[in-house]
């Protein structure tokens, strides 16, 4: 049963019907980040203060490249949808919210692209 008058939705005050997808995306990315992060923590601790040739040869290894690209891509997507919830909770004005979310989306996207580009450049660099 729907007890609400349709005018509420017509005025844009109703549910956008996209909440579930956001909720699921946050959990699915979280599940994949658990093993990726454990792998990364062990690998990076093992490489603590490593010099340039060591890091380049580590990043260039195919498995490491693929896992790093996955970690960066999934990680920054998870970061954006998490930050989005915080902004939606605490920023009241529609315009401020829109501008903040667009800036955060751009920053997370650019950082993700920059990270993936760096991995691929090192990996394909022929060192």
């Amino acid at each position, binding site marked *: 049963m729907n007890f609400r008058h349709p005018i509420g939705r017509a*005025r*844009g*005050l109703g549910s956008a019907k996209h909440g579930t997808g956001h909720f699921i995306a946050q*959990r699915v990315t*979280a*599940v994949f*980040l*658990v093993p990726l*992060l*454990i792998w990364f*923590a*062990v690998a*990076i*601790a*093992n*490489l*603590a*203060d490593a*010099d*340039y040739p060591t*890091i*380049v040869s580590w*990043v260039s290894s195919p498995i490491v490249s693929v896992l*790093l690209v996955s970690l*960066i891509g999934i*990680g*920054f997507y998870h*970061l954006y949808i*998490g*930050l989005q919830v*915080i902004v939606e909770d605490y920023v*009241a*004005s*529609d315009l401020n919210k829109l501008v903040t979310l667009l800036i955060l989306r751009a920053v997370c996207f650019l*950082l993700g692209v*920059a*990270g993936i*580009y*760096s*991995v691929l*450049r*090192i990996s394909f*660099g022929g060192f």
Partner: protein
Amino acid sequence: MANRARPLSPHLQVYRWHLTMFTSIVHRVTGVGAGVGGLLLVWWLMAAAAGPDYFDFVRSIFGAWYGRLVLFGVTWSLAFHLANGIRHLVWDLGAGFDLKTSHTSGVITIIASIVLTLAVWVYAYWSMGAF
């Protein structure tokens, strides 16, 4: 429309502090801390892509006492967010919601975040040949 004055529900300051509330707030804060870690990872990778000179500059910053302090904080942020994130995933399966279990899992999360952080750093110092 949507922006007219609405009644507001009471916020943080009126509630007695309890552990599950604390872990919930810290989960958000450490999520942002993990984001800072992501930023540092990208900076470090871009430095490696840029070449040995710039990489050595970034390495010297990460290796200085203030760099290690930030990286230690980022490690704890990630460890807490990881441990508490697993706690959230268990809740999403519908398990562990009762007061006693959620309090116990909160205590375990805090201890696990500290143990994981120290384990990573002891391993890091060991691999650098500190002992």
